[in-house]
């Protein structure tokens, strides 16, 4: 799948309008195959897989040794009225709302998943009942960026 295909997949699959507190007009910024992973630091692999927990914001991409390889990364930020939402949770769901993974949002509202390639649903939960939901596409060796506004 090309980068252009991928961007249109993400922006065209916004389900946020059905959720309370979500702003369908500003939930998706489009996919961006970020080049930041080329700076990955092979020396910082120690913390990546020792445990099983999800640190706030998700594990850093730079924790992955060498290049992105066959990792299929989905990452982004959650904002409300332009400010980061630092208390809340991002959940990745599969077909039929099957739970796949969840991370607490980072201080900058950030989240990151290392998914299998394919189509996923991203759901965000935040205090005061705020929620948002949208579809994302993950591909091997690529970072799919998703911006969510509550």
């Amino acid at each position, binding site marked *: 799948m090309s980068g252009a295909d991928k961007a249109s997949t993400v922006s065209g699959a916004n389900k946020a309008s059905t959720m309370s507190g979500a702003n369908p007009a500003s939930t998706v910024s489009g996919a961006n195959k970020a080049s930041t992973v080329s700076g990955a630091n092979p020396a910082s692999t120690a913390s*990546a*897989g*020792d*445990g*099983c*927990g*999800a*640190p*706030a914001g*998700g*594990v850093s991409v730079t*924790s*992955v040794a060498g290049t992105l390889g*066959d*990792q299929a990364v989905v990452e982004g930020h959650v904002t409300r009225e332009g400010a980061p939402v630092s*208390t*809340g*949770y991002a*959940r*990745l769901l*599969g077909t039929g709302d*099957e*739970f*796949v*993974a*969840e*991370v*607490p949002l980072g201080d900058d509202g950030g989240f*990151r*998943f*290392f*998914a*299998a390639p394919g189509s996923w649903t991203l759901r965000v*939960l*935040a*205090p*005061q009942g705020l929620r948002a939901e949208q579809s994302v596409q993950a591909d091997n060796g690529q970072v799919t960026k998703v911006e969510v506004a509550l």
Partner: protein
Amino acid sequence: MSRSDVLVDADWAEAHIGDPGVAIVEVDEDTSAYDKGHIPTAIKIDWKKDLQDPVRRDFVDKTGFEALLSERGISNDDTVLLYGGNNNWFAAYAYWYFKLYGHDKVLLLDGGRKKWELDSRELTTDVPERPRTSYTATEQDASLRALRDEVVAAIGKRNLVDVRSPDEFTGRLLAPAHLPQEQAQRAGHIPTARNVPWSKAANEDGTFRADDDLRSLYADDAGLDFSRDTIAYCRIGERSAHTWFVLHELLGLPNVKNYDGSWTEYGSLVGVPIELGEAR
């Protein structure tokens, strides 16, 4: 034992903040969450630094557990209320661990840190001081813990419950999707295991589903024979501690063990059978 003997809600926790007989403990792998804010009077236990042996792959021994609890100011008479992030995975693991070492008065906070945060309840950065104690643990209760040889021998004979995500179970992923995909040498699951992801036992806010729903989930949907002994496993044993809590503590099944070696051990063993794809 009933649900109220092992699980309490946030109102109960709030009412017992400052209760001298109740030690509130946040257990996480990422303890920066505690440092940013925790339930008032809660102390922290670091799942990795405090509960795991620093050299061998094992958890701290009886002496280490006694030293930890004494240093944190927890006494044998205290009621310990555990909560944490990751939908209480590590708090459930700690709960299992307290039971292994013979501490009876342990409770889990339903929904853990997530529900507390989503409900916008009070969090503080104040770190309490609890006077040192002289905690005494019992020997490990072997009836709660499965080791690898027992797991291999249980194939086809006992209920094996793999609580990882379907993608990990079938072999598409080696780790949960919030982690880079590395670790075990081989993907897949233990033959004859049923896949009941831990998440099916929890609501979206991290609370446990009702007992009847849970019973139906394991008995009807997954086809678990409740008259058989059961071993639960995941990747490193904390998600399966969550399921162990459901089966042993909430549903009251008598013989349920947690295999804390889990897939990072089993998937790297030489010569053991592995199944790929859907459960057979």
